[in-house]
């Protein structure tokens, strides 16, 4: 912004590279970058009958002058010049050698692409194409391209190498009763996991790519016949709109940017789960699931606040107990948001509501505290969030130690040092504990932020301030929608068939809640 001033004062000399003095700051893209960008757009692979030209064109696309991963293996097949092109690491070298190069080298007749695909090469998948874009995408997927001199047809051979970890146990959504396997980073494996649980021909998987720079694969899964077709159209419209934005897309968690109707809301409008069984349940109920390559989570939409408060275990235990657990979670959500604010309101404005003994004891413990009630609450809330954040980042065994140090030792030390009162400590720890019972991490974070808002509202207006904020919050949340479905459905608006708080008998349960207009299977 002040680059002209810097230049005129001599802080920067000419075109010297300097961090911070970026092209954006100067308000224009440098000519060199502009030229390079234009050239990159023009770089397109065009299959050619002359092998040399075709390889040159393809090499130009992959910048083979500086890219060591772009491998070209020249061959002579029955007297014809040929080349096998692949990306190092993505293709399986052993399969490539055994199933492609060795059979090709042992051929003595002039090769024909059709014959090669049908009889010549023992690979699982092979296709012939003349489209340059298909060849480039195939190479990026880990396929090998076989190009022969004299023909513009390129054979794409499936020799992909799958680098993936085994299906592991759930880390964040543990249950006592229920399956323990979780998604991994491989898209195909995740689709298979879901398919193994939703065993119906109605299960549809639609593949697409996202991101202008990196073309990450994602799969949209739903149960055709159950899902509302309008929801599918809306999701695809949003994803296609996101595709056209030419924005680098690096994973499933960024999906919410494109799927949220209120992108600036602190409340989640999609649900991320690492559990295939939970995903399968949502699919059966008519929800849409998006799986992304490289992300061990499924993104589910549309959702309601009740879906964010449910766990997979609710379906595996007795309905009465599950219902009680759900109610406790709702109570915990409310307490997590309201408790610190309520404490500040009671201590600041409405001491008369406390029983006399409690009022005396609380005020006595506060007598030596130098900070205001808001001050001590803020210290405790921020301290707890520090401990929580640190315990998430540090490695395994230190994790528990950190929790103990943060939660007990540090809290006790603060109380001993008269920085906070024991009552404040109890209130914050109780609010934090309530927050941790919320199953969805995004909702936990939202509750944490709302807790701060309530804290400030109570400082301004006590109970009245909290009431004002709570009505505003509820009326705002009533207008939030997830892919068109109201956030508080099926309570507001009320619907007949639902999966809200009340667990029904197995025979009365519905697989198609009204809130998402799902069509029930006959």
């Amino acid at each position: 912004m002040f680059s002209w001033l810097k230049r005129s004062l001599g802080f920067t000399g000419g075109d010297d590279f300097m961090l911070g003095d970026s092209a954006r700051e100067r308000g224009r893209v440098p000519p060199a970058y502009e030229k390079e960008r234009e050239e990159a757009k023009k770089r397109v692979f065009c299959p050619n009958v002359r092998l040399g030209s075709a390889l040159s064109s393809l090499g130009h696309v992959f910048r083979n002058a500086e890219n060591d991963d772009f491998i070209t293996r020249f061959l002579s097949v029955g007297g014809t010049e040929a080349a096998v092109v692949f990306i190092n690491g993505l293709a399986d070298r052993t399969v490539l050698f055994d199933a492609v190069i060795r059979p090709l080298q042992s051929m003595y007749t002039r090769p024909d692409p059709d014959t090669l695909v049908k009889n010549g090469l023992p690979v699982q998948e092979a296709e012939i194409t003349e489209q340059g874009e298909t060849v480039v995408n195939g190479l990026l997927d880990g396929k090998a391209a076989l190009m022969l001199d004299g023909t513009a047809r390129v054979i794409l051979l499936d020799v992909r190498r799958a680098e993936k970890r085994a299906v592991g146990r759930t880390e964040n959504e543990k249950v006592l009763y229920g399956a323990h396997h979780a998604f991994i980073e491989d898209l195909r494996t995740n689709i298979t996991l879901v398919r193994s649980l939703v065993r119906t021909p109605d299960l549809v998987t639609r593949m697409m790519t996202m991101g202008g720079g990196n073309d990450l694969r994602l799969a949209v899964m739903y149960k055709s016949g159950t899902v509302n077709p309008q929801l599918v159209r809306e999701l695809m419209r949003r994803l296609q709109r996101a595709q056209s934005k030419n924005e680098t897309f690096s994973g499933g968690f960024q999906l919410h940017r494109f799927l949220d109707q209120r992108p600036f809301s602190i409340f989640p409008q999609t649900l991320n789960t690492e559990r295939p069984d939970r995903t399968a349940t949502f699919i059966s109920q008519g929800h849409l699931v998006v799986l992304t390559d490289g992300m061990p989570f499924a993104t589910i939409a549309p959702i309601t606040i009740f879906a964010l408060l449910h766990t997979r275990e609710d379906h595996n235990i007795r309905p009465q107990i599950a219902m009680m657990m759900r109610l406790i979670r709702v109570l915990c959500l409310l307490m997590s948001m309201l408790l610190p604010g309520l404490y500040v309101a009671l201590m600041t404005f409405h001491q008369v509501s406390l029983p006399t003994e409690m009022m005396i004891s609380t005020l006595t413990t506060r007598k030596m505290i130098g900070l205001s009630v808001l001050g001590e609450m803020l210290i405790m809330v921020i301290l707890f969030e520090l401990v929580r954040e640190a315990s998430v980042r540090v490695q395994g065994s230190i994790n528990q130690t950190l929790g103990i140090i943060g939660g007990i030792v540090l809290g006790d030390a603060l109380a001993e040092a008269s920085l906070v009162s024991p009552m404040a400590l109890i209130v914050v720890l109780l609010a934090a504990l309530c927050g941790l019972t919320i199953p969805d991490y995004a909702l936990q974070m939202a509750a944490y932020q709302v807790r701060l808002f309530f804290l400030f509202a109570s400082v301004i207006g006590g109970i009245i301030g909290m009431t004002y904020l709570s009505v505003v919050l509820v009326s705002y949340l009533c207008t939030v929608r997830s892919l068109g479905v109201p956030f508080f459905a099926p309570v507001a608006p009320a619907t007949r068939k639902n999966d809200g708080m009340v667990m029904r008998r197995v025979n009365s349960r519905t697989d198609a809640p009204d809130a998402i207009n799902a069509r029930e299977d006959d």
Partner: protein
Amino acid sequence: MKAQIIGPKEVGALVLITIINRLAWIDPQTLLRHPGQNAWMLPILALPAAGLTLRAVRSLAFHYGGPINGLSTVLGRRTGAVYAVLIAVWLTLFQSAALARVVSVTRYYFFPRTDPAVITAYLMGTLTLISFSDAEGVARSARLMLGVPLVTLFGLLLLSFPSARLSQLAPLFGQGVGETLASGALFSGTFFGVYVLWLFGDCTGGAPAVSRAARRALLLGAGILTVSMAMMAATAGYGGFKDAVSYLYAMAANIDWGRYVQRLGPIHFFVWYITALLSGGMIQTGVARLLGRLLCLGDMRPMAALTGLCVYALTVLFTAGYAAPLSRAVNLMSTPVLVLLPAVPALIGRWKRRRADETA
């Protein structure tokens, strides 16, 4: 088929919440001095006027959908527009008079040293934010939060029961027929919640189930008011706060659970402000929608903010006492205006429909 954004349960909840809201602002002095032992009769006496209003409102909502569409069809485009502006002005005055009372009570109990203009600013800011969520947000919030005042009221009545003396209730017209009827007529303004059918007419889809829900909520609300006011009259004299402004506050503050909680008053108000905010939000949203539709605005939020500003100015004047005659007039005229506003276009509409049928 019109879109039904607000269903029967939301409409019923909104009607009920606006009726219950009235209880919190009945002050002991007024209750004891004016209707006194006859307090329990007031909702019953006011019910016919409320029923007429509901009938007129239902007729308009059922036949013409939203208010602007109905008024322009029945009265013509220009006269309809003028009538819509009159409704907006009346509702703004009504809202301001009601909020002036809320502000006074808030100041009395919680912020005695704060300037009423500041308290009004907080209240109006909140109401404007609520009205930004439009009819959908207000009605669904009412549906979500209805349980809170209902359960609280039920608990309060149960807890007050031991200190109630049924001999304090007059069986019928204890204050005399004329005075009791007059008090009952003035009480009709309590049932303004039925306007939801008209003001949010283009969101309810004109479904018969919606008007049925409003009717049931009206009857249920009148029942709740009757019981509550009877209890207020029966426990009169037992409140620990003779100079209390709100009777329910006095009742709540009299409850002491020993070691667990004492003087429930402040916490109790947590509940009553919910009803006040949702009732106010409904009126403000209704006015904003009315004016927004009249001016063919796509977004009604600017009108909501403008209405908020007008209500703020009027409430400050009412609270300060500068516009006391106007405030008194609004309170006195609430019943006739409440009935007449929808009744006039409803009757004209009916007459026009009948004439069209005869011509056909």
